[in-house]
Structures are given as C-alpha cells and as structure tokens.
C-alpha cells in the first residue's frame, strides 16, 4: 500500500478528538472511543449482532448487485442513444437529488415490510449514480478506438470485449464504488424505520433508548467496514488505470 502514514495519523487525531469530546464538552454523556470499542467487542461476541449483520449484508449484497447490473444497462442504453439521454438524463438527475425517504411510503406500498423493501431502497440510492457514471464513461470513449477495432477487423463481440470494456473499466469500477456506498446507505436507512432486524434497526433501536454507546459502536463497525472496502476498490481502480508506475510518472 502507498503511504499509510497520513491516514493513520488522521485516524489517531480523530480518536483523540472524540476523546476530548467525551471528556470535556459533553461531560461524559458521549462515550469514549475505548468504551465504544469495548461495546463493539461485546456486541460482536453475541449472536444477535451477527444476525443483524447477516440481515443487512444480505440485503446490501442484493441491492448492490442490482444497482450495478441495472445501472450499467441503463447507462449503456443512455450512452448509445442521444435521444434516450436527452429524454431520461434530466429525470435521473432530479431523482438523484430528491430526498428519497419521502418516497418510502410508496416503497412500502409496493413491497410491504421486509427484505424486499430495503433492497428496493438500496437500489433507489445506488442505481442512478451507477447509470450516470456508466453513461459518462461511454460518452468519453474515443471514436478512434472503434475505428482502430474496425481496422483490426474485430467483430462486434471482440470489439466489446477487447476494446470497449477495457476502455470504460476504470470508470465503471469508480461507479461501482459509489454504487456500493450509496446502496449500503439506502439499505441502512431503509432498516431504520421499516424493519425489525438489521444494523439500521439496531441503531434506530439504540437511538430510541438513548444508548449512545451502542450507536457509536455500530457507527465504528460500519465506518471501518466501508473505509476498508473503499480503500480496496480504490486501489483496484488505480491499477486499472495503468498510470502509476513510478518511473513513468517521473518521466512525464
């Protein structure tokens, strides 16, 4: 890994700041990092927590996959047709900036309480950015790539596999990273008021009880998970861009 130092230092500062908050500002009503950590360890040794994780994880995986699959399909559709872009992009952009919680009643109407509702909610968050980013990636393919593929006498499928896909792949991975984050957010928000299980529900429950310690423990868990996952995806994205060999950067 490149340069772990600064992020680690930032992390330490973050924990220190949290501790100061605990000690000074809130008179101990906000638990310390140590307490939250201990609470997380306690949670993690119970079966209930892992059941919640499984519940959330399942909905999240499905929501994420659906977001990516349909996002790419829609993005390709938009990328191939100017007319489709003109017709649907403004709608997608508006939908993206809409507070999607207000549509929750409609989602419940359509799916009822349960896993499918939160999956739907995850997809509502993850699908649109995936579609828009895919469309941008396709719009930015240089026409000369296609002409080169023609000259090399590649057939349609080979062009797709050998030229188009590699050309858009880094952007796609970038889009997936965002779809990943947002569909997790969607699922969690969904769980917060339309489920009786899952981490979102557990957090909501703790909020009702004013159990700040548990909230912070869950936040710690989610934060660690998504930072690690994002760092991994970022490094994949970087290596796909093929521009980070030390020597080449230096020559430029």
């Amino acid at each position, binding site marked *: 890994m490149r340069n772990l130092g600064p992020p680690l230092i*930032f992390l330490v500062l973050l924990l220190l700041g949290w501790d100061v908050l605990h000690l000074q500002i809130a008179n101990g009503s906000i638990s310390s990092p140590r307490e939250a950590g201990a609470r997380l360890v306690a949670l993690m040794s119970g079966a209930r927590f892992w059941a919640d994780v499984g519940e959330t994880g399942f909905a999240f995986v499905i929501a994420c996959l659906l977001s990516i699959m349909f996002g790419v399909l829609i993005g390709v559709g938009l990328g191939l047709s100017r007319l489709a872009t003109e017709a649907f992009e403004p709608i997608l952009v508006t939908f993206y900036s809409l507070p999607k919680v207000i549509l929750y009643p409609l989602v419940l109407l359509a799916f009822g309480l349960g896993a499918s509702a939160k999956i739907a909610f995850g997809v509502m968050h993850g699908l649109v950015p995936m579609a828009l980013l895919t469309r941008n990636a396709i719009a930015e393919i240089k026409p000369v790539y296609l002409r080169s593929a023609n000259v090399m006498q590649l057939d349609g499928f080979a062009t797709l596999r050998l030229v188009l896909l590699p050309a858009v792949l880094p952007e796609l991975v970038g889009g997936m990273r965002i779809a990943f984050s947002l569909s997790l957010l969607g699922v969690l928000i969904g769980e917060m008021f339309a489920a009786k299980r899952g981490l979102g529900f557990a957090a909501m429950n703790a909020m009702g009880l004013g159990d700040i310690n548990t909230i912070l423990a869950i936040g710690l868990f989610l934060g660690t998970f998504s930072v690690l996952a994002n760092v991994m995806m970022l490094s994949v994205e970087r290596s796909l861009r093929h521009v980070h060999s030390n020597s080449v950067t230096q020559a430029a």
Partner: protein
Amino acid sequence: MRPPGLLAALIVFGAIGLLETACQTGLLQHSVVLPPSEIAASLWNILQSGAFNRAIFLTLSNIFITAALAIFFGFVVGVLLHSVSYLRAGLEPFLASYYAIPTFIFYPVFIVLFGVGSASIIAISVLLAIVAMITATLSGLDRIPIVLRKTAKVMRLNTLETAVSILLPSALPYLVTGARLAIAYAFIGVIASEFILSGQGVGYAISYAYNNFDNQTMYGLILLIILIVVGTNMLLDAFDRRQPTQTARNR
C-alpha cells in the same frame, strides 16, 4: 434544436397522464394511490389553508442554512486540503468512503451537543453535504492548468489578485457542480432527518400523515417536495447555462 429538458418533461407528463387514467379506471385502488389530479388539489388545499406553512418555512430555511454552511466551509476546507498535501493524504481515503456511513445514526450524539431541534438537524445535514463541496473544490483546484498560474506571474499579479481573478474563475465550473451537489444533499439531509428523527418540518409531516393513513396530506406534501427540488434544479440549470465557462470546459 429542442429546448433542453423538453423531451424529459413530455415523458413526465405522459407518465402522469397514464397514472391518472390508471387511477380513474380503477386499475389502481384509491386507498393506495391517489390520482395526480387529486394530489395536486390536495397540495393546493395545503398551501391555501396554510396549515403547514410553519413546517414548510422551517424546512426550507434549514435547507438554506445547511447549504450555505456546507458550501462555505466545504470550500474553505477544500482550499486548506489542497494547500497542505499531508492533510490531504490523511483525509482522502475517508472522503472517498464517506457516503456509506448513515450520518443519521449519530443523531443522539448531536442532540447531546446541540440539543433537540434545528441545530442538530442542520449539523447532521451539513456533515452530509460538506463532503461533496470539499471533493469538488479539490478537483477544481487540481485542474487549474499550471500555465494559468504562470500567466498570472507574468502579469505580475499578487497572491490575492491571482486567487480572485485567475484561480477562482478557473475552478468555478467545479465549484458550481460541488455547490449543486451540496444543495441536493442539504435537501436530502434535512428532509430525511426530519422524516426519520425529529418532530418538525415537512419531512416529519409526511411521516406523520403516513402513520395516520392521511393519504391526501402525505401525497400533497410529497408532491410539494418534488416540485421544490425540480424547481431548484431548473433555477440552477438556468444559472449554469449563463456561464461561458461551462462550454469552455469541453475543449
């Protein structure tokens, strides 16, 4: 040339027409989905009666304050991170994964810090919106061509003049994009907080109406939010199109 957005508007109106027919012919039950005409009428009544004026005003002013704070501090933090590369290296991995964490769950923490009410909601929403502005500021500053900085030196501009008349205009398209995202997230943050957490504002009113099976009010208010978001977007679009810089980016 079609005016931009015309096609999209036609599609939306077509969909509304379809929905209306489906409702009127009984294909969709009245207890479940209201026909658009009734939703519009309900919104009209809501606005006429003024019953929700306080909630609407509260929500909109919170959104406004959130957006203003997020844009200002997002810009400041972005500039700071850009000029101190060590800070930036420390923060960037976290910025990238920021949106996966539902900020809302920290509401109790904010209540301890800011008390129940608007201040906590604004704090949460600023936290949600500011990252978009920080990221946009960073990419805007990153993309200022080096040659423009050199040109400023050749014209013998001082630091302030360079910042105001070269760096800022050059980064402006990105800043505008960031500000638009921040505004979108201010809407999302404030209304979602109201909906999930608090006892105030339009978000809460929707949730309250939903829990009391008051479909008229619920759909009316949902429509209100959608109209406000669409209106804001159109306003910002119109503003965007007046900027010559936007087209200049495509060279």
